């Protein structure tokens, strides 16, 4: 049996302690420190005492980010979400505007979107089970 297609998902946001380890992990995929190029975002809900907001790509099957791309740089991923073809991307930022949950991050240095590929590397570094890979098909 072929392996199932998976996507990143929030398992339980209330378990988040705000350590940002997932963001650092995402940046390490590019072999760098910090979290500038992270495709996942964690911030407090109006103060850390109220818990955290964790923004991940929902892997839409009809993604608005791809629909508004004027140059076809975002192509549909099997199982939801999109792939970015950076050589086509002109950095217009429409995709970022179109995503209602703010899951299209922005790389200011390259002036291109940061798109979650649902690789699940971040999941290995979430100490408290906030995020996970779930099967979609």
């Amino acid at each position, binding site marked *: 049996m072929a392996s199932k297609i998976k996507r990143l998902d929030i398992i339980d946001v209330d378990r988040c302690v705000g350590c940002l380890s997932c963001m650092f992990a995402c940046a390490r995929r590019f072999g760098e420190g910090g979290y*500038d190029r992270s495709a996942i975002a964690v911030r407090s809900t109006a103060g850390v005492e109220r818990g955290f907001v964790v923004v991940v790509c929902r892997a839409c099957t009809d993604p608005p980010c791809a629909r508004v791309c004027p140059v076809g740089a975002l192509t549909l991923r099997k199982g939801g979400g999109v792939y970015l073809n950076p050589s086509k991307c002109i950095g217009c930022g429409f995709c970022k505007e179109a995503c209602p949950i703010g899951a299209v991050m922005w790389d*200011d240095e390259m002036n291109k979107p940061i798109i979650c590929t649902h690789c699940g590397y971040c999941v290995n570094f979430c100490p408290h089970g906030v995020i996970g890979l779930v099967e979609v098909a």
Partner: protein
Amino acid sequence: MHPKDPLPNVLYIDLTRKTYWVENRKELFEEYLGGAGVAINLLKEECPKGADPLGPENPIIFAVGPFTGLYPIASKTVAMFKSPLTGNLGESHAGGRSAIAIRMAGYGAIVIKGASDRPVYVAVHGDKVFFRDASALWGIKSSLTVGRIIREREPGAGMRTIMRIGRAGERLVRYACVVTETYRHFGRLGLGAVFGSKKLKALVISGRKSIPVADRKSYREIYKELYDTMVKSPAMRKYHDLGTAANVIPLNKLGALPVKNLQASKFEKADGISGENLAENYLGRRIACAHCPVACIHLAALREPYVDEPYFYKTTFISYDYELIYSLGSMLGVGDAEELLKMLDEVEVLGLDGISSGVVLAWATEAYEKGLISDKETLGLKFKWGDAETYIKALRYIVSQPNDFYKALARGVDYASKVYGGEEFALAFGGNEMPGYHTGPTGYFGFLVGSRHSHLDMGGYSIDQKVLGKEYTLEELVEKALREEEWRQILSSLVVCFFARGIYKPEVVAKAFKPIGWDLSVDELEAKGRAIHRLKYEFKIREGFSLNKLRIPKRILETPTPHGRLSEETFKEMLEIFKAKIGLSF
């Protein structure tokens, strides 16, 4: 160091002239790594000899290190300044998002000079620095409100630090703290008062720099090893489960928990303020500093009814740690968890160092009992062990300082006891109020000679517990304590949280340096640790510190420790050994 690492950038902010500039200090960082090592050098450069700690000439240095932003639990920022409490070296560490924010903004250190003529807060967003008027924030009742206002006004949600002072800092209470991310603190030695003296209400920092590494593959591998060790380590588990409050019961059993101004070392009400009781009945949320998977920050949810309307409640989140459970709990005879939590909330609102506050009130209670002070001085407050309501009123008076007595309390227990008597039970060392460890000779030795008179300098409380029941010489204790303080200079230069000291062993640190482009052997690291320690000591001596005039409060010799009663001779002997080892003249 990787040639493109922004670490060597030092941001200088001049509050007098409202200007800023950046200097590249590559040699300084290569020699002293970052954190404490770099900060002591910058302090020596910027702080003139004999500077008034509350004058514009006293600089504030913040420094992070090469591991910040690259490795887990490298989550702390080191602050250095001249302490208005001790009149000597001021060094305080805090986590929250402070370290990551400074590093991501593209700096290894920030130096704040001069003083503003009117209240300001400073916002550092990457390359830009903004001086914002803070007149309307000055005098706001709660430090928490100040955080909320700035949070809505400034960009960078999720990746910024908001350091701010409360009214204690504005009113120059010598042990006012700087609060960051609501629940973490540059607590000790009065950084809040230095902020206040500069009319600096807050410092916001954010940025989005990335940090290049030299060997991507091995960087990822070493990161994973460190991370896995951390999340599986039992020591880290303890900090996550009950947090530092886990120490209350073991220290009480041992007879090392200071009670009622250290008139005793076992507390009959310890169960009430134990980590177990707080976790089972009040724990509402655990949170972490940025880049720390452990999450040791414990927030209690305190639900209180309003008296004027039925079924009307407020729920307050209050962070608790061992040190404050000791200082505002057992040290004051407060054994009720809710009463304790209300006091913790009050020091947070006012922006006071909780350890110093508790020790000052403990002295005041005993002085009141003994008749050294009366209702005239206390303005009618009747200090009584366990009476949290009175203590909360007293904390407010320490900040508002309506008479000479409260003005004296605002200067610390050393000063207050010089004016009103009771020095033999004024529990400060080197001018700094004691932390909660009546463990034996090494703990106190560390308070006396540690470079910032903190339990965290030498970790003597831990050495005392390890050697309990074993044979040891004073020479061995001093040797262990001094080597520990020297090695901790490396940890606080990286800057790694001391809670991970069991993981960041010398060999591990040397190994982790490699993929990020540094080549340092264990020997070289240890030599640097020694050098940084001596630099701190040289600064102390320059500012008038002497091992020949240390004050040992009699009280610590009267109440038995787990090692029995301590004698003054023990300390004299330890000091002589220390002097010979450290090799500086006094």
